[in-house]
């Protein structure tokens, strides 16, 4: 939560370089994996030539081989290509939902923190009510009104995680508005709008991208969970959670259908957390431990 970084905590540059190179293969691996996921999201054809939804009953449930790296599913579709194309769903749903949460949450948080008084009270109580429902259940309630589907899933998940952003931005705005340098800027006779835009906003918003990165992992897991329940993209879309729901029924005969999509989700989320935490440490000016 600290806004300023203290210089004496900064690692010396040589040590830092060494740290990057040797001591933290996890960071490098995470970065490489995220790069792969991004490529799969934007340009899946680079990674696989197979069609993710082309069924071939004669090739059903083949174990992993040179031809089908991850095997084939119960309809004879290539699992590797489905996992690669699936990145698009998970990443886009996750990123869009987090973007909605971040935008709405930041707006409410700023409004609450700057206007204060009755507005703050109203927004805070509203957030209290929203967060008395568990995230996933709130998303389910929203979906029960709108019906399942990719867009509905994005909005449901996004709105359910608004409080997370709103609370942090509100608290941050309070701290900064009371901090010494804003006080000092005020003694220069700066107007309120100048103070807000030039001195408060940049710092109040500084945490939002980090919060979004760390929240992205949770959101991807939740999105996959809701798709697993049939609330998201409908078959034959190669979404990771939906693939696992299908795999659940064929586990006895074909384990490989149930392994790769889950591994893809887990590795993506781990990589995002590792990078997000590193970023947070750097932001707080702490030495990575």
């Amino acid at each position, binding site marked *: *939560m600290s806004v300023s970084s203290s210089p004496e905590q900064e690692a010396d540059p040589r040590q830092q370089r060494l740290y990057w190179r040797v001591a933290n293969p996890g960071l490098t691996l995470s970065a490489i994996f995220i790069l792969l996921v991004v490529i799969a999201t934007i340009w899946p054809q680079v990674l696989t030539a197979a069609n993710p939804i082309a069924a071939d009953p004669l090739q059903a449930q083949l174990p992993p081989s040179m031809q089908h790296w991850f095997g084939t599913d119960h309809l004879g579709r290539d699992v590797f290509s489905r996992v690669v194309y699936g990145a698009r769903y998970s990443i886009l749903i996750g990123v869009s939902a987090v973007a909605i949460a971040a935008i709405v949450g930041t707006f409410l948080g700023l409004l609450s*923190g*700057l206007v*204060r*008084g009755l507005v703050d009270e109203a927004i805070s*109580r*509203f957030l*209290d*009510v929203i967060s*008395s*429902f*568990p*995230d*996933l*259940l*709130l998303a*389910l*309630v929203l*979906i*029960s*009104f709108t*019906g*399942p589907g990719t867009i509905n899933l994005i909005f449901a998940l996004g709105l359910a995680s608004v409080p*997370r952003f709103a*609370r*942090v931005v*509100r*608290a941050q705005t*309070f*701290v900064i*508005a*009371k901090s010494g340098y*804003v*006080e000092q800027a*005020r003694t220069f006779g700066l107007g309120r709008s100048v103070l807000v835009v030039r001195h408060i906003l940049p710092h109040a918003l500084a945490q939002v991208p980090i919060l979004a990165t760390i929240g992205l*992992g949770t959101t991807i*897991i939740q999105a*996959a*969970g809701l798709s*697993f*329940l*049939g*609330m998201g993209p409908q078959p034959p879309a190669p979404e990771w*959670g939906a693939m*696992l729901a299908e*795999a*659940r029924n064929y*586990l*006895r005969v074909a*384990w490989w259908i*149930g*392994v790769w*999509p*889950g591994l893809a*989700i*887990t590795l993506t*989320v*781990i990589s995002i*957390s*590792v990078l997000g935490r590193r970023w947070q440490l750097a932001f707080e000016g702490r030495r990575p431990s």
Partner: protein
Amino acid sequence: MSADNTTAFEQSPSAWFSRRRRLKRNSLASQILVRIGSAIAVLWAAVTLSFISIHLAPGDIISLLIGEQLRTPEIEAAIRLEWGLDKPLQSQYLTYLLRVLHGDFGRSYILQTDVSGLVLSQMLPTLKLTAAALVVAVVFAVASALLTAGRRLPRSIAGSLELILISTPSFWLGIVLLFIFSFTLKIFPVAGDRTFSALVLPALSLGLSLGAVIGQVLRQGLERALEEPFMLTVKSWGANDFVLRLRHGLRHAALPAVTLAGWLVGNLLSGAVITEAVFGRPGLGRITVDAVLAHDLPVVLAVAILSAFTYVVLSTLVDVLYLLLDPRLRNQNAEAGH
């Protein structure tokens, strides 16, 4: 955790934007009353929100509640009577509020049954699952914190394990466990809720990731406690390391972990929805998923209100317990005027 932060921020003497009036709330009893009052207010707002959402939903209430069912004049009349649709909105709202207060969540016209009865009948399997998962989570967290706090190598191993567990979707963990222990080793049953052994895998897949989160908080708390001066005193009595951690450290470390209780139960409940689907268990999660897919709003809202109720009651209990246990908080909260 953000709640703690807000409290901390508001302690400092008000400057600038802050015009919050500060009430004198020094007595313990009145503070507890304030907590309970705000809990009731949140619940009231949650029920109101669900009333509003039904009215704001696209389409009229009758077709919303009937869904795919055949629309007969009798059913229509029944819905009109139940929701008081012929009366003004205020009295509809009042009727709804009173009904929920009496534990009556209306009728599901899609399943053609009373919602309260349905929810009650499905409560037990879900309670069993969440309780078992809670045990898994607490045992994992306490063991991992006690054994690894302040020890370099074990600590980083446990940290990595926790990162993996937190990042693994519970339903995938469930599928992997099913494959290994049910299909391959045939130790545990594949589905259902008939025997105790049917509870093991669902509890593990639901509880482990939560255990990892609590474990992290607990370890941090324990490490902080181990550095306190009083630990040196206890060591000088000749207490061995394990007793030191268990009897003296854990007590201090537990406080921040207990704050997670409300969050934890919310997570258990929504996690149960998915876990029940993976393991084909009966329970609240199962009826929730079916209700969401069938647009059966009374059932969905009943489950949502029930879980909000559980969450609010538990977190209020934790708050009050805190006030009783830690006298320092009383003054702080009086200052914060929350």
